[in-house]
Structure formats: structure tokens, C-alpha cells
């Protein structure tokens, strides 16, 4: 990772989008940053936290996005510029607070929310577009189209927030967040910051405490005035511009990474003098005058944007309000099906849309080329399905869960949650997980299932969640289960890290984002204090883990907790040598014969085990095997042998 705190104004640095955003925040002079990890947003805090101390700022991994945003608001109220960053799902978690924050207003310190969306849901449970949230909550919204803009917009947004007195939001997407580009650096502010919550004089924005509260409806009206102010700034923003001929056959209106795809497409089609691009950086409120000025560039307008038709609808709304005699262009986009209504875009898709609208035939390259390229890339990449890492404790946990549910024989159900273990929807976790929604939903759903006894429901219910997910959103659901005596077992997969997003610390790890040791919040002590029966299992001990789960299911009664405690293999592997040296004894391995039928490489599926078709035996892939030794306990023939390393 690049160092974002390099003090060299005017020089260029290679930054990923998230680092550019973090740098922008530094240049804006933030004093406070809070976040909950989530791809593709994690590197914002990931790059701020390590340098926070040195830069005299405070940075934290909060237990969830709502707390992160609220904490940042607290800093703003005391006059400190503050930032909260999160992935798209997190914005939903914060939305209740946001809806009230915008009505109340922010403090003296600028307050900015960064949302990183994930078109195509590459690392997410959905591909939700957070731009509409800014619109329905009346939050000024910008979106960078380049890495430079990612930095510059972030910095600028703090000024805007302070000038308007309202929260401002920057939306980014995976291809900006994780791609790398040149960013020209600005100055790093050197002034010291002083925090003070001025309760008498700083009531312009914060909820008054000593005065009669201003009615919310009136505050709503104030908010619209703030939006008008933001819109005015947006009209002259350098983040909005047009490239192309004065009169164009087609006008593309775009934003974010689609700006890059649109440029590529126009260039590839050699239509630079026929197709113009209106690139918007300030999206909401729409800079209507600026847009209107460019509308007459063409009779045909194509909207190029990912996920929701956000600009498309905003511009249509605006055009509907133009005087009756104004020109009415033809609109193309998601509504006309020229642009995908879901998933990421790319230059090829934009080329197709332009070609179809302008009736030109475009053959990017000969068809065979594509096929050949695909074959070639396949030949150099080994075929692997999505699975847990070799040595992952989750594989062992789900093996135990699978066997326990089968042995129990009442068709038990596993409700899932968000984390690496969501892979248990598929073969990696033996198809054990049946539901996956949002953080904490697994335990919530289990609450409902666990109360259906009166309707003859007899299926055991296990809710799985990660350790970080437990702290994030599962505790209320557990309390509900204990209070309302719902019959389920909360299985906490405690691998001592927020593993899926890059091993960020959490309250159970004893470490803060800034690398300082802190109190360990003991999940078992917490659960026991709530009155739950708590069992702690080592998932690598398959037999006793299975037995414990079986016994807990048989016991029934209210909500219980089983903690599967084993450090994430990727964390352990960095600190220690493999515990075992594992090999397969080919004389003992019977492979496909009766008595095995390739249990290890057909069902257990640890990538450290490979099936040698030629000799009809399994073997260990020594490069991948992490020496956990769990497979020695599943092999029915005792053919997998572990020796202390």
C-alpha cells in the first residue's frame, strides 16, 4: 500500500481510489475517521489508521456502520472534520441515523460519508446503488470519475459540508476504489485542532438542548435551503464538464467509472467528432442549469451509468419541467434497454449501445480472437471452484454441522450471515447454509423459526455468524432469542479477525485500528451474562464439536450459543509454521473403491488435497496444504497421515 501521508505537494503518486479518498480527507484536515470494514471500501480506513497517530488524527474500526457514522457526527458537533466510510450495505445500516442527522444538521466540523458500491456484487450480497439513498434523504452527492477526482472531491466535500451545514456524501464503485492511477498531491494542513462542543453558540445545526426545539417540519424546510445552496455550488463545479463537438449526433451523460468506459468507447469507434460526453461529478442535487445548457448538443441522449437509472431519471424529471416549447430529445439508456439494468458496465457494452443507436456496425475484432483469448487464459489458470482456504476452520465447522444435522435427523436448518462462511451456501460448506441476507439476519431469522413449535415445527435451527458479525448486528437478535425463548443455537465462527475484508481487528481481538492494545470484549462472557448457555468448541476436533452440537440440539429450549474458536488460517499462517506435515499413504488410500468413494477430494474438498486420476489415489498438494491435519480425521482408511512438523 502507498503511504498516503507523503508530504510532497505537486508530485504525483500511484494510488488506488480508496487511498486517493483517504489522502483527500487528510488534505482536508480531518481529525476523525470511523469505518466498518466492507469490500470495496476497506482500504480507506486501511490506509488512514496506520498513519493516524503520526498525523495527529483519530481513526477507528467501529463495530458497525451506524456507530461509525454517529461517532463521526459527534466529532463534527465538536468542530472536528470527520469522515465515515463504508460499503453500500452499510449505508442502509446508517440510514435511520442519516434521516435524522440531515434534519438536525451537522456541527462546525465538516462531515462526509463515503459509500463504496459494488456493481455486479463481486464481493457483496447485493449490488445496491446508494445514489438513490442520497436523493431520498436529501444529501448532496458527488461521484469521482478519476483517481485525481477521488482525492480532490473528498477534500472539497468537507468545505461544502461546512458551507451548507449538512452532511455530504461521496459515492465510489469497485473499479475506482480498487484500481490504481496517478494522483497529484496537494498540501497537508499543519494547524492544530481543538475540539469543543459549544452548546450555546453552535446551535445553528445541532439539535438545540436549551432552547425550544425547532419543529422537524421546519427543519426539513431548512434542509431544502441547504440543498439549494449545494446545487448552486454544483452549477459551477469543475467536476462537471463536457467533451465533444458543439453539435453532436449523440450526447452521452455519464458519471463515475462509466466516464472512463464512455471515453474508451467513443475513441474505439473513432466518433470523437460525432459523439459528445457530458461528465457529471456532482450528481445530487442535479446541476440543472449546467445540464440544460448541454442538452441541446444533440437530439439523442444516452445515459451510461451502472446499476440504477439515477442520472437518467433525474434528467428526465428535469426535462419534464422545461417550458413546453423546449426541445425534446430522445432518451436512451436502461429504460430503452440499450444499457444493462444490472451488473457492471465496460467499454464493450457502451460500444454496443452507441453502435445500435447510431446504426453503425462495429466489429471489435475477429470473433475467433475472443474465443482464443478465453481458451488461452483458461489454460494458464487452474480450474478451482469458490472454496474455503486450505486449513480454514470454517470447513471443519461446516463438516461438523453437516454431520450433526444428519445424525440428529430432524432436517435441521442453518441460517447464514455475511462473511467468508457465506460460501457454505455452496459445496465449500457442503451446502449447509440456507439463507443469506444482511449482517445479523441469520440470527434474526432463526428467532422466527425457533418460535414455531406451536405449529408443529421440529427442525433444529442453527444460525451461523462470524465474530465480527456477532458484534456488528447479532447481539440484539441473540437477546431477543433469550428474552422470547426462541429455540435456536447461535454458532459464532470465531476466527479472531474480520477475515473476509482483510483481517481488521474487532472488539474481540484486543487491538484497535491504530494498532494499540485494548480491552478484549469476551463474547462468551457477554453471552453468558445474557443468560445463554455457551459452549466453546475447537472445530478441528470434529468429533467433539459434532457431539456438542448434537447434544445442544437435543436439549432444545431457548437460544444458546456455540462458539467455534480457531484462528483464521491466513492469520495463523503468517505467525507460525504449519503444525503438521501431511501426506497420503498410497498403499492405504483406496480412492474410488467401496469404503471411501473419494471422500476427501469429492466431498471434503480442501484444496490441499488433489485427486491423481492416473494412479487413482489422492495426494497432498504440498504448496497449498497448510498442515492443519483435519483431513486425517475424515479419511476412513487412515491413509492421510500427519506428523508433527
Amino acid at each position, binding site marked *: 500500500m502507498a503511504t498516503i501521508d507523503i508530504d510532497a505537494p505537486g508530485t504525483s503518486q500511484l494510488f488506488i481510489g480508496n487511498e486517493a479518498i483517504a489522502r483527500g480527507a487528510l488534505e482536508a484536515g480531518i481529525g476523525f475517521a470511523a469505518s466498518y470494514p466492507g469490500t470495496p471500501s476497506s482500504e480507506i480506513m486501511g490506509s488512514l489508521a496506520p498513519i493516524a497517530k503520526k498525523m495527529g488524527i483519530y481513526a477507528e474500526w467501529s463495530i458497525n456502520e451506524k456507530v461509525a457514522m454517529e461517532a463521526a457526527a459527534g466529532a463534527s458537533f465538536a468542530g472536528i472534520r470527520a469522515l465515515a466510510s463504508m460499503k453500500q450495505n452499510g449505508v442502509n445500516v446508517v440510514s435511520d441515523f442519516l434521516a435524522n442527522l440531515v434534519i438536525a444538521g451537522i456541527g462546525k466540523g465538516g462531515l462526509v460519508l463515503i459509500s463504496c458500491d459494488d456493481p455486479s456484487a463481486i464481493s457483496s450480497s447485493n449490488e445496491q446503488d446508494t445514489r438513490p439513498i442520497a436523493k431520498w434523504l436529501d444529501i448532496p452527492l458527488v461521484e469521482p470519475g478519476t483517481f485525481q477526482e477521488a482525492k480532490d472531491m473528498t477534500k472539497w466535500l468537507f468545505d461544502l459540508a461546512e458551507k451548507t451545514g449538512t452532511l455530504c456524501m461521496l459515492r465510489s464503485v469497485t473499479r475506482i476504489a480498487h484500481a490504481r492511477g496517478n494522483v497529484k498531491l496537494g498540501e497537508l494542513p499543519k494547524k492544530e485542532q481543538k475540539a469543543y462542543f459549544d452548546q450555546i453558540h453552535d446551535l445553528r445545526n445541532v439539535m438545540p438542548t436549551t432552547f425550544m426545539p425547532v419543529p422537524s417540519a421546519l427543519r426539513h424546510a431548512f434542509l431544502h435551503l441547504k440543498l439549494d445552496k449545494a446545487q448552486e455550488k454544483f452549477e459551477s463545479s469543475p467536476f462537471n464538464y463536457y467533451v465533444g463537438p458543439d453539435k453532436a449526433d449523440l450526447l452521452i451523460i455519464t458519471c463515475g467509472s462509466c466516464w472512463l468506459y464512455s471515453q474508451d468507447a467513443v475513441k474505439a469507434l473513432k466518433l470523437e467528432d460525432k459523439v459528445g460526453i457530458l461528465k457529471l461529478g456532482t450528481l445530487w442535487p442535479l446541476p440543472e442549469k449546467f445540464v440544460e445548457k448541454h442538452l441541446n448538443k444533440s437530439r439523442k441522449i444516452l445515459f451510461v451509468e451502472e446499476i440504477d437509472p439515477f442520472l437518467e431519471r433525474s434528467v428526465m424529471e428535469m426535462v419534464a419541467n422545461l417550458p413546453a416549447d423546449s426541445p425534446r430529445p430522445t432518451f436512451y439508456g436502461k429504460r430503452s434497454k440499450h444499457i444493462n439494468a444490472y451488473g457492471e458496465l465496460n467499454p464493450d457494452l457502451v460500444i454496443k449501445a452507441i453502435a445500435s443507436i447510431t446504426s453503425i456496425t462495429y466489429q471489435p475484432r475477429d470473433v475467433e480472437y475472443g474465443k482464443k483469448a478465453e481458451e488461452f487464459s483458461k489454460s494458464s489458470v487452474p480450474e478451482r471452484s469458490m472454496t474455503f482456504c486450505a486449513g480454514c476452520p470454517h470447513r471443519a465447522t461446516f463438516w461438523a454441522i*453437516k*454431520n450433526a444435522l*444428519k*445424525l440428529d*435427523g430432524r432436517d435441521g436448518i442453518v441460517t447464514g450471515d455475511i462473511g467468508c462462511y457465506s460460501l457454505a451456501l455452496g459445496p465449500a460448506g*457442503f451446502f449447509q447454509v440456507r439463507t443469506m441476507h444482511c449482517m445479523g439476519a441469520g440470527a434474526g431469522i432463526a428467532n422466527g423459526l425457533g418460535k414455531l413449535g406451536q405449529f408443529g415445527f421440529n427442525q433444529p435451527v442453527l444460525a451461523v455468524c462470524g465474530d465480527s458479525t456477532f458484534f456488528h448486528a447479532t447481539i440484539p437478535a441473540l437477546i431477543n432469542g433469550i428474552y422470547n425463548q426462541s429455540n435456536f443455537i447461535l454458532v459464532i465462527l470465531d476466527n479472531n479477525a474480520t477475515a473476509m475484508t482483510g483481517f481488521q481487528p474487532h472488539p474481540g481481538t484486543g487491538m484497535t485500528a491504530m494498532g494499540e492494545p485494548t480491552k478484549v470484549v469476551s463474547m462468551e462472557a457477554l453471552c453468558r451474562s445474557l443468560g445463554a448457555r455457551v459452549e466453546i468448541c475447537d472445530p478441528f476436533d470434529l468429533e467433539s464439536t459434532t457431539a456438542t452440537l448434537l447434544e445442544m440440539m437435543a436439549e432444545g429450549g431457548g437460544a444458546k450459543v456455540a462458539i467455534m474458536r480457531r484462528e483464521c488460517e491466513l492469520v495463523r499462517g503468517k505467525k507460525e509454521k504449519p503444525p503438521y506435515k501431511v501426506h497420503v499413504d498410497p*498403499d*492405504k488410500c*483406496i480412492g*474410488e*473403491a*467401496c*469404503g*471411501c*468413494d473419494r*471422500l476427501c477430494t*469429492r*466431498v471434503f474438498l480442501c484444496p490441499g488435497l488433489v485427486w491423481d486420476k492416473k494412479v487413482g489415489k489422492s495426494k497432498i498438494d504440498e504448496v497449498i496444504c497448510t498442515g492443519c491435519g483435519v483431513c486425517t480425521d*475424515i479419511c*476412513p*482408511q*487412515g491413509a492421510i497421515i500427519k506428523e508433527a512438523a
Partner: protein
Amino acid sequence: MDTKVKGCKELLNEVIDKDLCTLCGACTGGCPYLVPYKGKIVLLDNCTLSEGQCYKYCPRTYTDMDAISQQVFGVPYSEDELGTTKEVLIARSTDAQIKEKAQYGGTVTTLLSLALAEGLIDNAILTRTSEDKTPIAFLAQSAEEVLQGAGSNYMACPILETYNHFLKDSNHSLGIVAMPCQALALTKMKKEPPENRISINNVKLVIGLFCTWALSPDGFYQFLRENLDLPRVTKFDIPPPPANRFDAYTPSGKISFPLEQIRKFTIPTCAYCLDMTSEFADISVGSVEGIEGWNTVIIRTDVGAKLMEMAKAKGKLETDKLPPQNLAHLKEAALLKKKRALKEIIKRSGDKKNLLYVGLSPALADKLLA
């Protein structure tokens, strides 16, 4: 009658889910997919083989009785009510400790201890009653360990899982205390030796128990838990007729239940079982009506005969003649079990010619049904 060998899915469809499973354990232990749990054989994962040893050795899949009899006795399946026999007698242990703990005469415990001591076997697979009073299979290597198994637990126990746990390169010599269904499964293995587990030739001794029926480790166990203070129970007994009781012994006395109350917990498959006297064991042991503290013993093979000789010669067992009226009663009871089972089988198959798993010669079948 379907004589084809199939896979575990068919075992599930035709035997386990049809309540025909005896819980013998023959399909488990050598297979990672089939596992016994609380009175049921569970399939943990999908096995893709279309023919499996699980199906092949199950005592409730097609069994050619003449062929397996030929294998162990060198003659077709006997028409005698007690199967192939060399001698029928009564016996009891001379060891006070054994007599104290044993179910009746302690013949089984004595013979096993002797087989271990003489090196005929180095491991005995038998059943003991565990702390919570469920039956559990275990390995014994010494007389003291064998003594831990003394006494009957009337719930079915999948002991053949323990046999199948021995890996293919094992050279242990084994003795097994088997119920009739388990002795049948072992004989199917002797006929067509299993692969990828210990050789069936390493089973040097099968001591069979008499059995009218066994009880369900699920339902009956629930009954016991509800009706007894289980930790205090020291012994279970179903005394020979005409007692018609199930007894549980506790330090403060015997608690009896009428058999009528118990019978509903028998595992359903016992109704389809023809064998009361473990006809395929080397030596079979049961109670003796009216002669308390003794066992009825049926010697069937040379192995059984030799062991019995040795036990007598070494003074481990005392023996006597089985009174003729006892023999007559025994035969009567054994025949009754066969007839009743065949009737049930035909009721289920709906066809006089279809005896499900029982491959009997038509002549013998007709004779038994007459």
C-alpha cells in the same frame, strides 16, 4: 426376490427406511457415509457407487441360505429347527466372579476369556452397558475387559461397525459375540470376503446369542428413562418363559414390567427374522428354561467344539445334558419364530413366492409354511 447387489441409496430405500434394519452395523464402520446413531443408520453424504458392500452384507438384503450354509458348514441350509448342530448341552462357568456378573451361566464370558488366554484370538468384539445404560460395542483384550461386557443389554447394538473399523492391513485375530442377524451378516462376508478392511479370515470365533427380538435403542431407551432411575440399575433381564417379564435390578430391589408393555419397543425387523439360535455362529448360547444359572449351548462348528473341549478340560466350564423336554421346547420356540417370520414376510411382500431377503429352497419354504 431381487438378488442384485446395489448401492447405499437402495439400502436406504429398501431396508433402512422400510424399518427392516436390524442395526447389526455391517454397513457401517468401513464406510464414511453410513453411520449408526441412536438406533438408526444415517447416510451422511452421497456415495456414488452403484454396488456397495453395505448392501451386499446387510442381513436384510437377499441371502442365499444354502450358499452361506455351504460356506461355513459344508452342507446346504439345515431343515432342523436349530440349524446345523454338533451338540446341544447346558453349561455354566466355574468362575465365581463371572457367575456373579454374567447374565445366566456366564458361558459367553468364559469362552471369550479362554479364547483370548489361549491366543485363539487377540481381540474380542463385544457389547457392554455404558454409564447411561445404552449398549456400546467395545474391544476386549483380556479376561478383565471381557468381564466388563458380562450381562445382557436388550437394546440392539451395531457391533459390526467395530469389526469394520479394522483397516485392511490389520493382522489381529478376532472373536465376536453376535446376535443372529449379526452372525448372518458375518457369514455373508465369509461367503464373499469384503475388500478394504480386515480380512474376514481373521475372524476366528463367532459366539452367537439366542434372540427372540431386540429392543429399540431409541424408543425403548426413552421408556427406560421415563420409568426408571437409570443410574441405579445394575442389571436387565428377560427371564425365560413362562416368566413373561422384563426385570431391572437396582440395589433396592427388582422392578418388573410385563412383557406386553415392552414388546411395542422391539425393532420392527425382528418380526421378519427366522433365526432364534444364531444358526451361523461357531457356538450359540442362551438361557435354560427352569434351570437358573445355566446356559443352553449349541456347538455348531469344529472351532466351537474345540473351544468347548478346552473349556471343559481346563475346568473353566462345567457342563451337563440338556433335558429332553427342554430341547423339545427350544425346538418348538425356534420353529415358531421361523413360521411367524415367514408369515410376516409374505404379508409384506404380498406374494407367497417372494420371501424378500430370505433365499430358501422352495421345498424348505413350503415345509415351514405348511
